[in-house]
């Protein structure tokens, strides 16, 4: 749609910007502040991890960045687009065009095959069956699952399911991929495979990754580790320089 396509946010060089965002969940008459004023900038091509104890607001922040949930106050700017200005339809379009999600529990649709799951975001945009099949198959090949294309999630191992989910997140060539404990449900060998693939995509395509994790093995691979505590950024730690990717 015009709004998302015509603006040229990439000039800003920021994939994600949050300005003093808060999120308060109200249960009954009691307010639970999940985020209490988070301001951060994530550059295009950055590989960022968000760590912190349970209840620190990691997933809440990820949902705000993913345009799944509006902040109570503050602003979220994705790829130069202020989310406050978008209605439900345009938020959906933004998610479809610019954001990919990878979840701990994979979140694949069980009755669909691997390739059908990967096709789902393309179906929403009306890509022809032929075009989306070939793109999806390419994507599955890239994650090493070409031969599993016609299997359903129940016939796949956890690691394979997560790779299908990654293929689904990347098939739209998003600017940002958000991972909520993407390696939380897979063994350490698969974790390393998934991580090396993420690093590879980050380097070659310049895709921005924001990964919420508990796992130091994951956070150690990233450029920057943002630690949240009680809904606030406790510290930010740069581990690597952002270099050697071709994107931007």
């Amino acid at each position, binding site marked *: 749609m015009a709004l998302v396509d015509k603006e040229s946010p990439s000039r800003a060089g920021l994939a994600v910007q949050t300005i003093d965002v808060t999120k308060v969940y109200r249960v009954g008459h009691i307010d639970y502040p999940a985020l209490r004023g988070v301001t951060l900038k994530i550059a295009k091509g950055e590989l960022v991890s968000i760590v912190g104890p349970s209840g620190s607001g990691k997933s809440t922040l990820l949902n705000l960045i993913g345009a*799944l949930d509006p902040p109570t106050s503050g602003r979220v700017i994705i790829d130069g687009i202020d989310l406050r200005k978008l209605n*439900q339809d345009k938020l959906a379009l933004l998610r479809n*065009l610019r954001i990919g*999600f990878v979840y701990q529990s994979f*979140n694949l649709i069980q009755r669909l095959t691997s390739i059908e799951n990967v096709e789902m975001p393309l179906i*929403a945009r*009306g890509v022809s*069956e032929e075009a989306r099949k070939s793109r999806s198959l390419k994507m599955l090949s890239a994650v090493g699952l070409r031969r599993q294309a016609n299997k359903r999630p129940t016939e796949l191992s956890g690691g394979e399911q997560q790779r299908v989910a990654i293929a*689904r997140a990347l098939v739209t060539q998003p600017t940002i991929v958000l991972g909520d404990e993407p390696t939380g449900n897979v063994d350490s060998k698969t974790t390393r495979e998934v991580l090396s693939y993420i690093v590879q995509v980050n380097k070659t395509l310049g895709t921005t990754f924001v990964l919420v994790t508990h796992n130091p093995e994951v956070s150690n691979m990233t450029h920057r580790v943002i630690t949240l505590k009680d809904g606030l950024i406790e510290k930010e730690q740069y581990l690597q320089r952002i270099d050697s990717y071709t994107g931007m």
Partner: protein
Amino acid sequence: MQMRISDIFKLAFKALRDRKLRSVLTIVGIMIGSAVILALVASSSGLSTGIQAQVGKIGANTLTVSSAGQFFAPGGSSGTQSYKLTQQDVNTIKSFQGVSDVIPYYSQRATISYASNSIQGELIGVDTSALFTMYRGLSLYSGSLPDSYDPSAAAVGYSIAFPTGSSDQLSINQMISTTLGGSTSSSLTFLVKGILSEYGRVLFSNIDETIFISLQSAQILLKTQYFSGLYVITDTPADVTTVQQEIESYYGTQVRVMNAGSMVSTVESITSQMTVFLGSIGGVSLFVAAVGITNTMFVSVMERTREIGILKALGYRPKQIMGMFLSEAILSGVIGGVGGTILGYALSFIIGGALPMFGGFGPPGQTRSSTTFTPVFTPELIAFSLLFPIGVAVLAGLYPAWRASRMNAVVALKYE
């Protein structure tokens, strides 16, 4: 960037297929509703059309007069106290104002047999020259009408001469044997002088299964002076009511006068009420099906809460999600409507075969054989039975689909 309609329906089909039993049960509910409406409405309008066709043959200016006592005693076995119709009654009624002609007749159930054929039919003795006045549009297929003074001469209905499913057929000047039912169980032999054209039913009689002999022959062969009934023909259709009143006031309850036109209009009002009533039964069953769809859809939306969350995360717009769920309902409606229409089509012929028209109800001395009728399918009715279930399904699916589209993505993704 719009989702393709074909993709929406493919996904809907996969979703329905995933829950086979539930989908099938929902669709069966729709099918029954659609089938019942189609079958019942087609049958009752078929019944109504059948009656109209029959009254067209009799003519609106016809009355039948029969002895009141005989109405409940078929086959001419009248009780002693019942009134007997004679030539004197013919003359009396003829003298009434507005009466153009009175045609007396004898009638008795009979089994007509020749070669390997045996047909349950009727013997009617009547002035054969009046035959074509009584039955409009009736004609001779071959031969001639029996001569009044030849007691062995007869004309037979089309089905007697050419029975379905039999290779033996009748030709002119062939002998046939007739065994009378009722009290006089004697066997008579006739020479076929004429074969009548195919005609069909007239209210109580099937002309195609009737053997006609002259009035004089019947009088001699049946050994009776008393007529089974009188056909009264009035000058105009408008005279029917006044003539009926005249006859009734003259004879009181001794005779029974039947006015074909008014009887048909009574039957028609019954059938049209029946159409509404039966149609409503179908409507109610479709309503029940609609509740079923809504229920199924709600369960489906609940179960797939997480899937809805996934769709939202993948960038499906609320309208698209609503469309996806709604198309599942539409698909159920389409399958149910098509299936129901086919089922209803078949069902209406079963009803047509099982429901006798005027079964067990007829004037004296005539057969009470039942008849089948052909259901009437108008394009409007077919369209209705195809499209109405779809409309019902859409309405039933609207609210659950809307609920699905309004779900909060974050909450939906956390749903276990």
